[in-house]
């Protein structure tokens, strides 16, 4: 108890004369703030991207592609194969009709609004079942395209990110002119980066005959995936890859989010090391400015432990202040900031928002805490070991 009272008393004294060392203290705080800001900003990019990809995936929707294709773009399925899939066991039926959508996935060049560069925007041909196999997709504005017509609906994120996709406008891809008749909301998931049209129309305009690239089916239950997989694997007419949509999208997300993390974590570690130097500097100068005061306290009977902890506490408080500022700034500036990038896994653009999440902020504050404790430790030891008599004589 006495020790704690001593620590609190000395800490209070330290903080009281903080204004006298404002310069160094501010530098330490800003240093930590910068680390947490960069940490949160970079990793919020990975978080936001993952969130967008994961939001799209559901457990009770299966996606079937040709074996070996790593993404829809690479896959190919014939109409016959699509029919086999539709009638396979495990597929949920609405009455007698299987709930499914056979789709064609191509990319088209559209200008990015932000830098006027060409972007590989995904252009998907769908069947009416597309809305039933995906959760939370609704028409936000305008209307659904009419089957058989050169009409498209546009994801909300794509509409914000790419040029020329406003509802009511027309856009040319090659020889074909398309009317944008509406936009759709997909809860911020990756589908919102896409343009959708009737799969038959897309097949014609891309000379794909009667072929598709992927089939999405609604499963009777989450467990039905094994049943479906077993049935399709043994069918000699088809050589498919069967996975849940969730599995598919997390595999699509992995390379890019991995990449951001591979860059982001070492970056944070290096910056944190830099910030520790800043904190050390600040705390050493704090100890040297307070040399006489510390010696006086020691002479009055305060123990070295009290001096030690008070110095560490001061440094930790400074670092946490910096962490809060950095995290707060990251949240204010980056949270919800929309970007789009080329997801190399699908060779097409994904529009996503930076997500500065709570656990990211907690991680950032932990980094700040580490900087504070490490930055305070060595100066604290020096303060506690200060030879009392000598320090009193100086000054």
């Amino acid at each position, binding site marked *: 108890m006495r020790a704690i009272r001593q620590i609190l008393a000395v800490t209070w004294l330290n903080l009281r004369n903080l204004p006298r060392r404002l310069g160094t203290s501010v530098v330490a705080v800003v240093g930590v703030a910068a680390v947490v800001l960069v940490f949160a900003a970079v990793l919020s990019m990975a978080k936001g991207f993952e969130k967008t990809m994961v939001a799209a995936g559901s457990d009770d929707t299966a996606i079937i592609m040709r074996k070996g294709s*790593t993404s829809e773009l690479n896959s190919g399925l014939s109409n016959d194969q699509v029919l086999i899939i539709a009638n396979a066991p495990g597929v949920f039926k609405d009455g007698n009709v299987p709930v499914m959508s056979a789709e064609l996935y191509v*990319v088209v060049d559209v200008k990015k609004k932000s830098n006027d560069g*060409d972007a590989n925007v995904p252009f998907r041909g769908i069947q009416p079942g597309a809305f039933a196999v995906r959760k939370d997709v609704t028409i936000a504005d305008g209307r659904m395209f009419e089957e058989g017509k050169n009409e498209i609906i546009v994801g909300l994120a794509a509409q914000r990110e790419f040029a020329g996709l406003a509802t009511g406008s027309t856009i040319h891809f090659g*020889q074909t002119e398309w009317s944008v008749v509406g936009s759709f909301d997909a809860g911020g998931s990756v589908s919102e980066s896409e343009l959708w049209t009737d799969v038959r129309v897309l097949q014609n305009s891309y000379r794909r005959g009667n072929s598709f690239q992927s089939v999405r089916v609604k499963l009777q239950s989450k467990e039905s995936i094994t049943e479906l997989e077993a049935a399709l694997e043994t069918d000699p007419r088809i050589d498919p890859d069967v996975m849940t949509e969730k599995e598919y999208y997390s595999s699509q997300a992995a390379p890019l989010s991995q990449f951001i993390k591979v860059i982001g974590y070492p*970056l944070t570690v290096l910056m944190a090391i830099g910030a520790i130097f*800043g904190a050390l500097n600040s705390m050493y100068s704090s100890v040297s400015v307070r040399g006489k005061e510390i010696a006086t306290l020691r002479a009055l009977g305060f123990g070295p432990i009290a001096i030690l902890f008070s110095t560490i506490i001061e440094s930790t408080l400074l670092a946490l202040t910096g962490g809060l500022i950095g995290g707060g700034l990251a949240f204010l500036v980056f949270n919800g900031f929309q970007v789009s*990038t080329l997801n190399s896994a699908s060779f097409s653009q994904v529009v996503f928002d930076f997500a500065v999440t709570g656990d990211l902020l907690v991680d950032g504050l932990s980094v700040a805490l580490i900087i504070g404790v490490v930055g305070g430790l060595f100066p604290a030891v020096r303060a506690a070991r200060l030879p009392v008599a000598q320090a009193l004589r100086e000054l």
Partner: protein
Amino acid sequence: MKYFRLVWKNAWRKKIRTSLTVLSVFVAFLLFALLSAIGQAFEGGADVADADRLVVIDKVSLINSLPMSYLDRIAAVDGVQSVTHSSWFGGYYQDPRNQFAQFPVDPSSFMAMYPEYKIPREQLDAWAKDRTGAIVGQELATQYGWKIGDQIPMQATIWTKADGGRTWEFKLDGIFSTDDPRGSAAMMLFQYDYFDEARAFGKGTAGWYILRVKPDADPIQVARTIDAQFANSPSETKTSTEAAFAQSFTKQFGNIALIVSLILGAVFFTLLLVSGNTMSQSVRERISELAVLKTLGFDDRTVLGIVLSESILIMMVGGMLGLGVGWIAVQGLAKELASFLPGLFLSPAAMMLAVAFMVGAGILAGIFPALKAMRLSIVDALARA
């Protein structure tokens, strides 16, 4: 120069403080080196591009193939010296994570188009004669331990064979490298003839064409002529210089350069604060000494110079160390990550920029303390001491 000893000794007056400052500068420039190498990996494609090479792709999207008949029609365009083609194979080796670029090409015209890829003559000849042969870049050969004569099975993700198989087996006939440190040869090349004959669909097409314009021809004009020739056909084209093509790819990734500069901005801001603070602390402690120097006849400008030099010196010591270690690290990483992130390279321009930043940051950090030292009134300063 004769003031160097004084500046150096002053800089190290408080060893811990100066060491800590030097270390944070070190970290900042290490980061600078790494980040600019990453930026270069994204943006560097345009730097290695040959100004006389044009790329012809499908106007709607790069993923659409172009008819093989275009080869002769492009070759016939005025101002075109030579033309070759390439396609995206998109397979992997053993595991889907082992991804690198693979292109079915025509060996002799492709290698003639890219003189920067160096391969021994006899290996090229052997490959040209070997229908199922392939050559790979040095980086890949090192990474996967491939030797000439090895059989390399590649798993197709797009191109199933006509017989339904997805495994394409190639015999390694040669290993090539690039002589440009910014470039990358992390790719596999194999024979188009074999590929086109064996694939299940898409026969008779190429992914894109690459052409070289004659030295006296205007590349822009050539590009326009080609695109006009295929206008209103089912496969319209978009022809651009190799640099513009590379840039359009970079732009697809979003503004990586901006993000990198934002991070660097945050780093430098912090760095300036730390070292500016060190400098002003150090000047504050030395007011009376600076006054003595002025008493001895050191004029205002010399005192300013001495304080500024100290700040620049601290930046240079930490910065050069950081840049040096960064350079070594980039060399190592470039080898390690050759197929994951090819083109990691710390360019001479980036290094010059770093040195300019060191001097600039040194001046910015030191200027206010230095001005304070310069304007110091001797009488007041001595009286205070």
